[in-house]
């Protein structure tokens, strides 16, 4: 019988809530309270997430974010700053001991990115995994991914770019050298792509989610059953949002 994992479609939430829910699922999974879980979600308002090791002040123009109504949050995963606007974000939470998850961290990135690539193929997009944590199509990045392992549990979350607005992104992110900002923007425009750009049409969030669901099912030989967050997860998520992700102490810690 095909193994069943839980699918969560939690809609569009704030940056604080999104990061709190991912961590709540991680903790619940580590206690054996919930099955392995794949979650699809979006961000409202748009937000920038920064990697665990990044300096908020180095990476983000906080005043510009506040002016534009863009939230910002520090992730529990490493990696770089991401502007979350027109994208599908996924997270996958699985015990480290699960036979489908490679023990070697880089191999597990490749495996989970494999699910995203299968999803993209369903949409008619061929892509490749480029270590450490990118997926590219036609040589341009379409997905960035970040993984943590805590309490013997793997959490990986990542983006699937549906559309991209590099100019807005760079009005919110700081660059090391303002003098070369224009060149940097031009470079990034050359290096990033999106579903819309590749297919020449807009694809609805739900259609991308449907394709990704199949991608994860095929990659991990599982069936995803739509479910909801358990009450314990909701309680944990509220606690993490309040005590961690919405606090200055957490977001400005580096």
């Amino acid at each position, binding site marked *: 019988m095909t193994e069943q994992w839980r699918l969560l479609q939690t809609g569009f939430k704030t940056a604080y809530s999104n990061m709190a829910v991912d961590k709540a699922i991680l903790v619940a999974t580590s206690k054996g309270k919930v099955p392995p879980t794949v979650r699809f979600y979006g961000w409202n308002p748009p937000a920038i997430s920064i990697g665990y090791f990044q*300096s908020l002040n180095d990476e983000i123009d906080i005043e510009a974010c506040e002016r534009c109504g863009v939230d910002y949050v520090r992730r529990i995963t*490493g990696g770089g700053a991401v502007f979350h606007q027109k994208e599908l974000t996924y997270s996958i939470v699985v015990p480290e001991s699960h036979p489908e998850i490679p023990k070697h961290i880089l191999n597990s990135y490749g495996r989970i990115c494999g699910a995203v690539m299968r999803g993209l193929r369903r949409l008619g997009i061929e892509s490749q995994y480029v270590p*450490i944590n990118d997926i590219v199509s036609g040589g341009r990045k379409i997905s960035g991914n970040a993984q943590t*392992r805590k309490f013997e549990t793997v959490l990986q979350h990542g983006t699937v770019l549906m559309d991209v607005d590099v100019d807005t992104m760079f009005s919110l992110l700081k660059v090391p050298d303002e003098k070369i900002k224009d060149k940097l923007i031009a470079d990034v425009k050359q290096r990033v792509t999106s579903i819309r750009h590749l297919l020449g049409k807009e694809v609805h969030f739900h259609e991308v989610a449907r394709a990704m669901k199949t991608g994860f099912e095929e990659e991990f030989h599982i069936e995803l059953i739509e479910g909801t967050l358990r009450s314990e997860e909701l309680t944990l998520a509220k606690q993490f949002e309040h005590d961690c992700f919405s606090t200055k102490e957490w977001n400005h810690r*580096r």
Partner: protein
Amino acid sequence: MRSQSIYKVPQGKLLKISVEYDEKEYRIKEIRITGDFFAYPEEALELMETKLQHTVMEQEVLREKISSIIATYHIEFIGLNAESLARGIAMCRP
């Protein structure tokens, strides 16, 4: 004395170092290691910052110290390694 460096790790990520050090002996007083790399467990980086205090900012000394911290505390870096971290810190010297 306070100094900073930005170093793109070959085949890796961007490393940013901010360090306060003793000017005479070039010993680290306080260091902050930031960037878009990965480290497992994540909390180990704060430990690394603490353990690097009082270390002389010479690349080889730093590399050995960092390697020993990595081995002792079972830290796994992705997009960063002992050599590059040592180099990024040594670059902060005038």
